[in-house]
């Protein structure tokens, strides 16, 4: 039987890509235990990896003295994840669309597009140092009223 009680947790981890391994396992296990679909789990895993890597690489610039805060809440209907870095922040509106023109052939710049495509709600706060993203259980991606970046 799927677990129904919400799980909520805050973790502060090092600025290195491998530091996501444990939090990622915890979040994906919580989704699995609450009956999220394999598509949901794939989507959240991808968005989490991309968001964390952005925080470590572009936010904290791999500075070992800086941390990344991961807050998550999983209930029977949705998962909400906030990733906060200690960098200078950024304006997501300035990031070029990687699907257009010559950008298609650039090796970088697809992380934010994937996050906004696979999560139903994505918001940036605290000057761009904090990304909050939500995915609803069993809801397909690409529904126009939700799959947007604010």
């Amino acid at each position, binding site marked *: 039987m799927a677990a129904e009680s919400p799980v909520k947790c805050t973790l502060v981890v090092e600025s290195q*890509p*491998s530091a996501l391994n444990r939090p990622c396992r915890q979040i994906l296990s919580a989704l699995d235990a609450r009956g999220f679909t394999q598509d949901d789990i*794939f989507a959240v895993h*991808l968005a989490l990896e991309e968001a964390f890597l952005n925080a470590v690489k572009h936010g904290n610039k791999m500075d070992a003295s800086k941390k990344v805060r991961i807050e998550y809440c999983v209930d029977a209907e949705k998962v909400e994840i906030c990733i906060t870095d200690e960098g200078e922040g950024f304006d997501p509106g300035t990031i070029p669309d990687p699907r257009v023109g010559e950008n298609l052939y650039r*090796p*970088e710049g*697809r992380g934010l597009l*994937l996050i906004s495509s696979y999560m139903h709600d994505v918001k940036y706060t605290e000057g761009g140092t904090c990304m909050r993203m939500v995915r609803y259980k069993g809801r397909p991606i690409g529904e126009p009223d939700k799959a947007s970046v604010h």
Partner: protein
Amino acid sequence: MAAIQPRISVEYKDEATIVAFTDEKILEETDVRALREAVESVVEQAPGIHLVLDFRHVKFLSSAVLGLLIRISKRVYEHEGELRLCNIHPGIHEVFKITRLTSVFEIYEDVESATRSFSERR
């Protein structure tokens, strides 16, 4: 078939070189860098290569791998070769569609159709 640093396996079929990624998940930059070095070494040893990248084992990848594929593609064409991708898991194919890389790469269902496409083009 030769296994290289267990990240890729290389097989030769007709006039094509089939490189299969052997990891189920490709995420970290160190993984991506190792793959890049391994595949580029295959490309550089064979000018005019007909390269097929086989994703049959790959169930999960990050955007860094998409960047890797762009780099490999450029290197292949610099060496006057051709590139095909195949056996892409449906979940990963969705990633290619979202990023519109389906318009950049030639993607085939399996190794046979990818390999055949080289001779059909002549």
